[in-house]
């Protein structure tokens, strides 16, 4: 009894200390810390090259390089959350040369950006720059969340694309199952124009509210769990990093939002084969490169029903699906990611890559 009282007093003292830290916003864990260089930039879009330092990560041991295409509604640091809990770090440790295409924070200059801008301009330009820097002839392309949709559209619209393989994570294709955010456009008939901000983009608050509506009670549960574990320093650090990311979205370019609502949500274009990019009809069945889709069955942002049909839509003879008992973030951060997701992805890509000889590795480093 005395022990329990003592434990409760200690925990309440720790709660008070961590609560003050949380409210004051001090002692936030550093995110996105893996060393990288900006190797190309156009508008708000940047191409990052992560340094595969031989002393830290063992240098580049496999080619061709990996290019990650990130989502358009969130911040890319989720893939490089904290040291020791980083998807990118694991890829570097596995011997890959890793690049990331980050869309930055769109403003009024990006309001007119349609999906075509990303699929036909930015991704090809990013790939060209990767090939130029690495000297390789192909890349292994990764798409995360909506970045996976962009990667799919790119691969389908450019059958001659220099891709060794295509991997997509938590990528929705059946937008009928995307929950309230999709329903208000598909069922409610709402016009995208009515949610646009003065800068012509969908404000981040609309995106956040849309995702929150998927699990209406999760917000309350989150605070209750935080109060329960506020004494635990590790939990608080992880809470700050994870919820910091899930509340931190970026504006969605207006023209791309209109296309998404019309083509992907109302017409359910991916599943019903009604896709158009830059005026051309596009078919996912035209994707013939080795393909891996990774999805989570407890995903509350991209529900499992939205990702499930993808494997059957892609035309690749060499295609695989990995369905994990994880949530949206759990696919790329945390224990499930470290033990299952990333090793499976690494294995898939490594089997379709070439080991580089020692001279190449030294030169690359």
């Amino acid at each position, binding site marked *: 009894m005395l022990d329990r009282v003592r434990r409760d007093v200690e925990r309440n003292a720790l709660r008070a200390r961590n609560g003050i830290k949380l409210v004051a916003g001090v002692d936030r864990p550093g995110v996105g810390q893996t060393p990288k260089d900006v190797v190309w930039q*156009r508008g708000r879009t940047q191409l990052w090259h992560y340094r595969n330092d031989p002393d830290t990560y063992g240098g580049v041991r496999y080619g061709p390089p990996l290019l990650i295409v990130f989502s358009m509604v969130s911040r890319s640091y989720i893939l490089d959350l904290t040291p020791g809990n980083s998807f990118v770090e694991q890829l570097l440790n596995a011997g890959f040369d890793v690049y990331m295409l980050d869309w930055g924070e769109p403003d009024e200059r990006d309001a007119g950006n349609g999906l075509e801008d990303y699929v036909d301009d930015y991704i090809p330009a990013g790939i060209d720059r990767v090939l130029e820097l690495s000297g390789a002839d192909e890349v292994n392309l990764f798409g995360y969340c909506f970045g996976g949709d962009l990667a799919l559209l790119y691969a389908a619209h450019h059958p001659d694309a220099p891709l060794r393989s295509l991997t997509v994570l938590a990528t929705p294709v059946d937008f009928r199952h995307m929950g309230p955010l999709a329903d208000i456009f598909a069922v*409610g008939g709402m016009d995208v124009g009515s949610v646009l901000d003065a800068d012509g983009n969908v404000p981040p608050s609309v995106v956040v509210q849309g995702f929150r509506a998927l699990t209406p009670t999760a917000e309350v549960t989150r605070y209750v769990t935080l109060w329960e574990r506020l004494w635990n320093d590790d939990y608080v650090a992880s809470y700050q990093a994870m919820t910091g990311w899930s509340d931190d979205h970026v504006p969605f370019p207006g023209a791309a939002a209109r296309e998404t609502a019309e083509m992907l949500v109302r017409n359910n274009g991916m599943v019903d084969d009604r896709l158009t990019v830059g005026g051309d009809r596009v078919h996912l069945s035209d994707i013939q490169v080795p393909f891996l889709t990774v999805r989570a069955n407890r995903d509350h942002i991209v529900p499992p029903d939205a990702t499930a049909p993808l494997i059957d839509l892609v035309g690749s003879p060499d295609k695989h699906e990995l369905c994990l008992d994880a949530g949206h973030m759990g696919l790329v951060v945390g224990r499930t990611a470290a033990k299952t997701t990333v090793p499976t992805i690494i294995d898939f890509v490594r089997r379709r890559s070439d080991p580089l000889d020692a001279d190449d590795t030294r030169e690359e480093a």
Partner: protein
Amino acid sequence: MTQPPAPRTPPPSPPLWRQAFDAAERAVAPRAEDLVRSEYFSLATALLRRAQTVAGSSVQGVSARAWHLLNLPAGSDISRLRAQIGSLDREVRRLTIQLEQERRRGSTSRPHSSRPTTATTTEDSDADGAQPPDGARSRPARRRAQRPSGS
């Protein structure tokens, strides 16, 4: 002689208040999720948003007329100007990217993008510190992909 493993202590059960919260959450969550996924919720949200937009644009129209009476630009004029500048910026950006691709294609003779090129003028690239000012230079290939794409 090895010691038998100590019996694992079960994790402590959550406090009573947490158990009560979990029970309440289990009862409420499915109903709340059904509600937000219902057709009525979507229609109501869309109608509400439409009403907000109509109200907002009416107020904006009145205030714009007031500013125009004083021969001053209104917020809507600035928004229109921003959109026009944005559109121009996008055009320049797209042309620059297509020009870059053409340059690279010329230097590496690697066909990649299937887009037709519309750029006919040369534009200075905007602020790319990582790229040489005289355009991207390709490095000699050190390794080749051994698998044709699509295999």
